[in-house]
């Protein structure tokens, strides 16, 4: 594979950019693979990548019903942080965050990880307590966070109105090493690396049934024919319930629309990521200049990748109150993704009732930040057949035992 570098670009500039290779191949499906991953989103691609990189398994097909990276990975607000309360979450999200730091170099693809810092505003006393608690937990877990006062918030992000009459900003949980990354590049970078390792990424190939013999998976049927495998990884986010039904089990998951929007691009006006959970909205400014805005999820089951306007309204209302200067900026585009919400709002990385079939889902509104860590842990689970320490707490069995990993306890939402 041709390496990307400034030098290569300069060279290509003289050759009219004619020398670039395809970022990934588009092969026909083979009849059989060792591993099939369903879903070429960030999590599916990262799983394949670490199966190859960490476990030497490269006889892999990644089957994608549309275009790779077009699911939630291609439509999220790109916030990366690891300031979670529970040990299990902090561990996997921090693993992911630290992998993000070197991901561009690992993949030889600039994913533009931008550790600009994430501030989660505390706007009630209750929230102050919750975030102080999280900061203390993080200190013990080895996640660098800090509870900062409102003057510091103002200094980090001058456009915040910290004196709002209804919800003054009392402080914030600040993670200086959190930030954003370029969502598409994450999918493309992993895809390029997977393809380069010889894995087959097959787009426009929807899985329509799961083949099994006895209680063991043997392959899948797709819109492009049947494909056999020894191990199957289901990594389809909002469509997990549909795939689980094909595989003969049911999940503690519901699919709902989560919306986001961007403003027209403007010159830099905010340097950090701000999340305001009490009023329900979060915002950052992309490198291109548009404000990237997200809020709460719609409340009902939905597979349409579009949501209701009043959620946009609520989000924007919250953000105009928090950042009064944005009132005269304009919404350019809004869209939605279908997210998979679990019973305790934490993800699932698990074996399933079907032998050799594994599932990675339930990242809901907040799995972009987890992509490298989740792929790492899922690869380990699939390669060894048993979860490693990162994945172990996220098994399906927890719902039967009542062993929830509940993140909502300290904060409101999780993005």
């Amino acid at each position, binding site marked *: 594979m041709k390496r990307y570098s400034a030098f290569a670009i300069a060279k290509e500039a003289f050759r009219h950019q004619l020398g670039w290779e395809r970022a990934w191949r588009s092969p026909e499906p083979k009849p059989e693979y060792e591993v099939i991953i369903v879903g070429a989103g960030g999590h599916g691609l990262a799983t394949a990548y670490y199966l190859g990189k960490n476990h030497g398994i490269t006889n892999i097909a990644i089957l994608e019903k549309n275009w790779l990276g077009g699911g939630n990975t291609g439509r999220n607000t790109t916030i990366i942080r690891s300031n979670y309360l529970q040990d299990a979450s902090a561990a996997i999200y921090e693993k992911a965050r630290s992998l993000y730091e070197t991901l561009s170099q690992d993949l030889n693809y600039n994913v533009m990880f931008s550790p600009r810092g994430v501030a989660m505003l505390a706007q009630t006393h209750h929230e102050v307590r919750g975030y102080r608690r999280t900061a203390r937990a993080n200190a013990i877990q080895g996640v660098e966070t800090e509870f900062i006062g409102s003057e510091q918030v103002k200094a980090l992000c001058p456009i915040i109105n910290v004196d709002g009459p209804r919800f003054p900003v009392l402080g914030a949980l600040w993670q200086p090493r959190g930030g954003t990354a370029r969502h598409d590049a994450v999918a493309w970078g992993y895809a390029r690396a997977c393809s380069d390792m010889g894995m087959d990424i097959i787009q426009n190939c929807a899985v329509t049934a799961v083949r099994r013999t006895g209680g063991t998976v043997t392959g899948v049927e797709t819109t492009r024919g049947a494909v056999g495998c020894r191990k199957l990884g289901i990594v389809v986010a909002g*469509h997990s*319930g*549909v795939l689980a*039904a094909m595989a003969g089990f*049911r*999940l*503690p*998951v*519901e*699919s709902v629309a989560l919306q986001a929007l961007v403003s027209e691009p403007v010159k830099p006006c905010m340097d950090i990521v701000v999340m305001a959970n009490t009023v329900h909205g979060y915002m950052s400014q992309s490198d291109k200049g548009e404000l990237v805005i997200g809020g709460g999820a719609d*409340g*009902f*089951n*939905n*597979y*349409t990748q579009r949501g*209701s*306007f*009043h959620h946009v309204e609520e989000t924007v209302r919250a953000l105009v109150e928090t950042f009064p200067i944005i009132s005269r900026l304009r919404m350019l585009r809004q869209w939605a993704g279908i997210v998979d919400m*679990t*019973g305790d709002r934490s993800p699932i990385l698990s074996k399933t009732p079907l032998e050799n079939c594994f599932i990675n889902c339930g990242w809901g509104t907040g799995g972009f930040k987890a992509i490298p860590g989740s792929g790492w842990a899922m690869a380990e689970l699939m390669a060894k057949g048993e979860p490693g320490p990162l994945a172990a707490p996220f098994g399906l069995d927890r*719902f*039967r035992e009542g062993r929830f990993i509940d993140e909502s306890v300290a904060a409101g939402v999780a993005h």
Partner: protein
Amino acid sequence: MLILTCPCCGAEADETELASGGEAHIQRQGPESTDAAFEAYLFQRKNPSGVHFERWRHAFGCGKWFHAARCTRTLEVFGTYTAQSLKPPKWILDRIRKRRPDWAGPLP
């Protein structure tokens, strides 16, 4: 923006007047239930891509819960009916079959 007709008061309520309540017709499991049945009751959801039976409450209105049959892929509403039904009434099923001839019926 969903608009559902509340079967209890007849108002054409829009989503901002309603509160959604997830899957309908889930049987409560009490102290005698097995672990598996209890887990299923609390967590396991059909979450279908297609015809779905669900609960809503006319929260900014008459305050009543009701059920709706809706397609999660097109958001078509086949009808709303009272929350005091253990399963979808026949007229709803008939209407769904008319609109979706190849529908296999409610998931078990």
